[in-house]
């Protein structure tokens, strides 16, 4: 074993090397993400849940359409209905995003990572970018697939949407943008809390539990929460129909992005200051 030369072949030490770049760190994080099994499973769950749940909800809603009241028919949003599975599917993205940094803490890998890349902000940024891009692609695939499957099930029973209808393309691209913003939020939360269980619990609370609790509050409390709660506001970009007490699609998405940016900056600051 020791017969092998320790030095790199064909390279003069130490003059030949350049500084490590952000590109290098991005490449490294991409390999990290694709080389663990949980990535594949979480993304598969996102697609399957998003499309299958969307299909079930679309079919059920379309069959009930005939018995809808006038106001219910007015607010009928076939695009939004076909995307309904995403409310649950997004959890898989949130969990994976949290794990892509907190699993490094739970395994000890973070020490190895930070020795390799001591400029810690780069690690967080590279993780966020790589996972946001992956989530955007998977989110886009899921939203289009759910849309076409959903509309096929709706048509014949209720008015359905077409890709060219006003707002539809924006909603479908919006779903992918929402997934990307959620990806950054989960990575930042994972980096902030470090413990997988704590960070996952926190994400579930933000995405599902608190919005549900808000529904039980009196109107004067509920309306501002539905309007401004970051993930609720952000999800407006995935709807075509604009309901009361919600922000406009891009405004809502802006609110979510602002929230994500704040959490990210806190995570970045702490990562830089804390002992690893």
């Amino acid at each position, binding site marked *: *074993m*020791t017969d*092998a030369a*320790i*030095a*790199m*072949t064909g*390279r003069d*030490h*130490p003059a030949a*090397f*350049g*500084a*490590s*770049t952000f590109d*290098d*760190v991005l*490449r*490294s*994080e991409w*390999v*990290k993400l694709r*080389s*663990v*099994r*949980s990535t594949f499973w979480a993304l598969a769950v996102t697609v399957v849940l998003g499309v299958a749940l969307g299909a079930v909800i679309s079919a059920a809603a379309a069959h009930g359409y005939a018995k809808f009241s006038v106001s219910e028919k007015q607010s009928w949003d076939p695009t939004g209905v076909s995307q309904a599975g995403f409310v649950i599917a997004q959890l898989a993205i949130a969990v994976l995003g949290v794990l892509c940094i907190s*699993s*490094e803490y739970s*395994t*000890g*890998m*973070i*020490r*190895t*990572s*930070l*020795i*390799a*890349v*001591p*400029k810690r902000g780069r690690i967080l940024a590279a993780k966020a970018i790589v996972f946001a891009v992956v989530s955007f692609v998977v989110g886009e695939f899921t939203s289009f697939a759910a849309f076409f499957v959903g509309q096929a099930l709706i048509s014949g029973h209720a008015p359905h949407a077409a890709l060219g209808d006003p707002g539809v393309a924006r909603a479908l691209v919006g779903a992918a943008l929402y997934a990307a913003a959620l990806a950054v939020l989960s990575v930042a939360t994972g980096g902030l809390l470090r413990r997988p269980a704590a960070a996952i619990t926190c994400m579930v609370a933000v995405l599902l539990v608190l919005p549900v609790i808000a529904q039980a509050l009196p109107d004067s409390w509920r309306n501002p929460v539905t309007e401004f709660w970051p993930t609720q506001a952000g999800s407006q970009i995935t709807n075509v129909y604009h309901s009361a007490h919600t922000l406009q699609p891009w405004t809502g998405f802006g609110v979510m992005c602002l929230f994500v940016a704040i959490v990210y900056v806190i995570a970045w600051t702490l990562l830089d*200051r804390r*002992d*690893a």
Partner: protein
Amino acid sequence: MIEAHGLVKRYGSTVAVNDLSFAIRPGLVTGFLGPNGAGKTTTMRMILGLDAPTQGSVTVGGRSYRDLPAPMREVGALLDAKAVHGGRRARDHLLCLALSNGIPGSRVDEVLRMVGLEGVARRRAKGFSLGMGQRLGIASALLGDPAVLIFDEPVNGLDPDGIHWVRTLMRELAAEGRTVLVSSHLMSEMALTADHLLVIGKGRLIADTSVDEFVRSSSRQSVHVRSPQAAELAARCREAGATVRAGDTSRAAAGAGPDAGTIPNVIEITGMDSAEVGKLAAAHGITLFELIPVQASLEEAFMELTRESVEYQAAGVTR
């Protein structure tokens, strides 16, 4: 070259590292020695930028670790063989580290061959034994072909063959002019590997010396004597200024039973060499059955040196 100036690390009210200054030179294996909890790992973590010093500074090649443009190409480190994501294959683990410092993928296969893990390159790291984990950690340290290498207890969990391999590797790395810092809590291990020693206890520097110097200065010589007139000889030796204590089984020559405790007729004399003891015995007509010069082992010298600073000590274990 690794240089520390007045390094201090406090965790709350605990002082892990206390005013540590040293310079670790290239071309030598420097052993970083101290009992468990002495602050070795904390010091290494500060060198590698994982922990920020409370006071003082430490530099590698004149720069603080976080300012190194391509850290893995300048410093290779093995802190903890378990600092690996178990779900990742060995080759992917090394590949993501290599890419982060712009090291080509071909180098990954090279280091896998070097540490003898090429056969398990496609296996996930969670199935690795501690020894294989150490080899993977050493592989990652070698990835960037660095001029400075830092290893925290690298022989932990290795079999004798692996231990021999690590020792040879350290010596080769140093012979190539690299700076090699190796921590251990075993003096005997360091005596075989290191050229220079940095001994710490309770976070403080106890010794910064060459191994040879350490051996010379801290060896305690004593003379083991068995004689039917041991008590008389003991009295004569004390008169001559030597220290005498009753011999115990640990130092006794073969033949003593393990449960003998203090053997009658055996004494241990320090402060006189065997020739002097022999002459003294002859002058007083004392019969000697055994007269053996005893050299304290390095391990004992080390324990002597760090006795004051051992963090966790078993209370009064008698044999």
